[in-house]
């Protein structure tokens, strides 16, 4: 570890966890959420920062027989083109590649996108579709402790997560979905680039003999947290992708989200857009 005024670079996880806990340091990854908030004054600059990017085990994508594991400090630009991610989770690659622009994606990390906990975090919905697990590591009096949290239990509100002070997101894991799983994700904004989503929607499903046997639905920017669409899933499970079922699923989606009116769109508009997006994806899944 190097000591440089309030800015610390950790090269080992345990050191980072110690600095985070003992010195109440702010965890720092790509800085693309933190820097603008500091300069705008919406967040006070901390006394101590601990930069996680030079900890080798927190970076990169790996896979074994059972699962794919992503280091939280992997930049979104790497994730978007990573061969393992493109093969096992193309919707995650797509979402990562549609965050902001090249300059931001080269810095922004997957871990930062999740821990910042914006309802509009583009990578969250794809990870909901993948039933991803987040590994969180903390240093306690007895040494390091690790716990696993489901992506759907991680977010607790806008900007809020279950992370305890000093706790670090250390891995993002998921099991690749079986061949034949349909998956789609899209975000809607007023222009194609540099756009925080008005709404985002994702769906993953499997069909057997025309009937939906397994399905995940997720929404972004339309609730206090990225949201799993359990009501829409309930409509779809065990049903064919008929027009009638698709319309009922879209209606369930419009009803189960909790959007707000803000500078980007009104509540009513967001409900409409989510229904339309989900409906289109399901029609596509029926023809795929």
């Amino acid at each position, binding site marked *: 570890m190097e000591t*440089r005024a309030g800015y610390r670079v950790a090269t080992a996880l345990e050191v980072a966890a110690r600095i985070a806990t003992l010195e109440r340091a702010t965890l720092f990854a790509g800085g693309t959420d933190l820097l603008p908030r500091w300069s705008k004054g919406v967040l006070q*600059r901390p006394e101590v920062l601990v930069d996680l990017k030079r900890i080798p085990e927190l970076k990169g994508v790996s896979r074994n027989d059972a699962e794919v594991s992503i280091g939280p400090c992997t930049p979104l630009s790497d994730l978007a083109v990573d061969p393992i991610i493109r093969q096992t989770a193309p919707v995650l690659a797509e979402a990562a590649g549609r965050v*902001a622009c090249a300059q931001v994606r080269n*810095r922004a990390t997957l871990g930062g996108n999740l821990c910042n906990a914006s309802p509009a975090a583009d990578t969250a919905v794809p990870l909901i579709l993948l039933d991803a697990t987040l590994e969180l590591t903390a240093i306690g009096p007895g040494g390091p402790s690790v716990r696993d949290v489901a992506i759907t239990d991680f977010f607790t509100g806008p900007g809020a997560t279950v992370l305890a002070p000093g706790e670090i997101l250390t891995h993002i894991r998921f099991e690749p979905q079986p061949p034949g799983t349909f998956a789609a994700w899209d975000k809607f904004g007023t222009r194609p680039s540099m756009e925080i989503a008005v709404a985002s929607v994702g769906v993953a499903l499997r069909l057997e003999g025309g009937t939906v046997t397994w399905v995940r639905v997720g929404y972004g920017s339309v609730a206090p947290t990225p949201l799993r669409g359990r009501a829409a899933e309930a409509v779809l499970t065990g049903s064919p992708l008929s027009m009638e079922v698709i319309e009922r699923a879209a209606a369930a989606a419009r009803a189960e989200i909790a959007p707000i009116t803000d500078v980007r769109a009104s509540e009513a508009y967001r409900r409409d857009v989510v229904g339309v997006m989900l409906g289109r994806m399901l029609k596509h899944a029926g023809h795929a």
Partner: protein
Amino acid sequence: MLATLETAKLDLSMNVNGQAVRLWVSPFTTLLEVLREQLELTGTKYACGEGECGACSVLLDGRVVNSCLVLAAECAGCEVVTIEGLTTNGKLHPLQQAFVDHGAVQCGFCTPGMIMAAYALLAANPNPTEADVKRGLEGNLCRCTGYRKIIDAVLSMARGGRSDD
């Protein structure tokens, strides 16, 4: 250039435009501030200061980044290339020349950032389509040109750097 500026607490060594620099920075100083104010490399522009416009684009270890969103302290041991670093012995880089030849510059404020983003785009994809160019420059705003001539300038490089359109 081996500059040592006793201005703050943090000892930073990096390579800027091929030269080793060593200076003192405070922990929250951005790379952009160091480039402009300490190293007097004012080609890199400050506009929004929050990652929205791309005027401050530079290469950091070969990747294009917004230098307003990078702490100088993060750059220890890194290689930074700014617009000044593209020119050799007073001769413009062919990409810079393409911007001149295509009239892709009006007020010029966005130009250094545009060129650095285009440089990174061409390094990764030497033969981009128009759609690739638009995508590669999506983080760079221009309030003057309407983008057409900028896109033409970058596309001219795809055909081997000729600027005869």
